[in-house]
């Protein structure tokens, strides 16, 4: 059903090349080149859903012991620094939009017709009531800078272990990044505390073909310390480098515009 995208091919070649150099330069510590490879892999994963630019429609389901909420939204992005998300349903929340530029975030609330900059105090708060925090959305890009990476592999999977550097400001003691070798897609991201206990899990599943790429269409964020809480994001549509996505979308002006 799926054929590997051209990206995948080149990566296969690259990987093959790297493996050779590793074997050849066996004097070098495996960790060093592993780390480089790890960085590459991470970068690739992060770019997976973005490309140079992308647009998507998705469904987000938030489950808690108290309620279950389903939202539909459309999102656009350029790289990992700029993204624009708009809620389409439910009716009550239709038109609520979030603009992210680098490390800053703004929300537009149509009912009160206001753009609110997300203050630092709300950054650790959840995004739209989900198990993702505002911080998550903003911080994805810095994983490779602020963590030390080691690479482990099995036949099927890469496991990249990220340990925060001394000065890195994060609540996590360790993060695992599990990648499927065959399709070069993420399988899971596990977040641990300092004692090695898993606190949060992000699982990727249900590969689908989106504009020629094989990408997991279902993401599940599961907090392990909160019973019955879960957030599921399902990509209904995902387009890469679509023509309608240009810089003008990622402005406050656009955030405010009538929808």
């Amino acid at each position, binding site marked *: 059903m799926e054929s590997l995208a051209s990206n995948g091919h080149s990566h296969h070649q690259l990987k093959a090349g790297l493996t050779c150099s590793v074997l050849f330069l066996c004097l070098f510590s495996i960790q060093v080149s592993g780390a480089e490879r790890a960085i590459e892999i991470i970068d690739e994963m992060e770019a997976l859903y973005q490309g140079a630019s992308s647009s998507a429609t998705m469904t987000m389901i*938030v489950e*808690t012991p*108290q*309620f279950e*909420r389903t939202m539909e939204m459309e999102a656009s992005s350029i790289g990992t620094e700029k993204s624009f998300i708009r809620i389409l349903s439910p009716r*009550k*929340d239709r038109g*609520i939009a979030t603009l992210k530029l680098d490390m800053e975030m703004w*929300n537009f*609330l149509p*009912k*009160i017709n*206001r753009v*609110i900059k997300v*203050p630092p105090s709300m950054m650790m*708060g*959840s995004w*739209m*009531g*989900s198990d993702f925090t505002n911080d998550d959305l903003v911080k994805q890009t810095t994983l490779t800078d602020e963590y030390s990476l080691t690479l482990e592999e099995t036949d099927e999977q890469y496991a990249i272990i990220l340990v925060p550097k001394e000065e890195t400001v994060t609540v996590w003691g360790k993060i695992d990044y599990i990648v499927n070798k065959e399709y070069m897609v993420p399988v899971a991201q596990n977040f641990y505390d300092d004692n090695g206990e898993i606190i949060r899990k992000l699982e990727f599943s249900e590969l689908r073909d989106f504009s020629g790429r094989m990408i997991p269409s279902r993401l599940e964020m599961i907090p392990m310390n909160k019973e019955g809480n879960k957030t599921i994001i399902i990509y209904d549509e995902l387009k890469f480098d679509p023509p309608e996505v240009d810089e003008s979308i990622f402005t406050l002006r656009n955030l405010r515009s009538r929808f």
Partner: protein
Amino acid sequence: MLLLKLAFRNIFRQRRRSLLTAISMAGGYILCTFSFSLSEGSYNNAISFFTLDHTGHVQIHKEDYLQRPKIHKTIDDPEQLSEILDSREDIAAHTLRVFAPGIAYSDTDNSPAQIIGVDLERERTTSTLEQKVSSGSYIGSDLDSDGYYSAMIGAGLANSLNIGLGDELILISQGADGSVANDIYIVNGIIGNRDSPDRNTVFLPLVAAQEFLSMYGRVHEVSILLNDEGDSRSEASLLQEELQDLSVAPWQVVESTFYQSMQTDKQGNNFSMGVIVFLVFVGVLNTVLMSVLERTREFGVLKAIGSRPTKIALMITLETGLLASLSVLMGLLISLPLIGWFTAVGFELAQPMDVGGIVMSHMTGEMSFYVFAIPLALIVLFALLISIPTGIRAARISPTEAMRST
């Protein structure tokens, strides 16, 4: 009984002495009741100030909302609960509330705010919210002609947001269903002043808050006012038994820090009361001893003409007891209206106290059974106790010695 008649007659025969003794005891009684009234009064005043402000005497929440407030810990069927509470005799009134932390925005500024949704009608009889309105009016729960709900905001918020009566207020928070709660309200009332504890609070009509937070029909807190504050703990346990799936707490638990300091205060008070009672005792001792021992000569004569010692002792005791009772009755007659005035009107304070928007201008006392009964019992008891050994001693003395003494 002859003795009784004798005792009675003796009292009135020795008018001057009896009067002096009686005045002394009556005076002691009046002062004692006054102190009790003052002590009880100040203690209770402080409590009612506090509990009437917003705490109430008993509060009901879901689970451990009180210690760990979370928006989803709600009382889901407040109507049924209200019915139960309305039917209970000891409950004077109750009100329903909803809480959420949020951010308030005006055209120009924003500030964190505590959002409280209240049942405006019920709140009138359960707390002093209405009296705290410093400008504008106590809002109603209806939508205005443009479809907006009214809000009352603390003076601190009005100041930091630079908004006033008639202006639009925007509130943002998180709903019980996880959605972003956001809406516009019209400021129609300002609460307290910039130092009030409520200065950064926004009060909304209950329905408005429930809508805002997507928690239709649910509330976080039920605050109850009892007819008698003293029943707080017992009523709380009774209610807790009946309402198995909710948490009921008396105000002593809800406001434990305040309660602790009140307890400390009470200690100091009790000590003072103890001292006063002791002094009253000494006064009675003084009085009784003097009046009985003065008459040693008289008793000597009685013995000389044949009265039996026991009879004499008995008569002394009876006389003293009777005199004491008459004295306190006299005291009661004066004390009743005095304490009545003190409770109703009280002393005017040099400077009226402003406690978070409520003004206390007088220091009043308390009128209760104990205030009158305890001093009465104490004085009569003291008098009797003192008179017994004294009487016995007086009765035993030899007539010749007695007649020689002063």
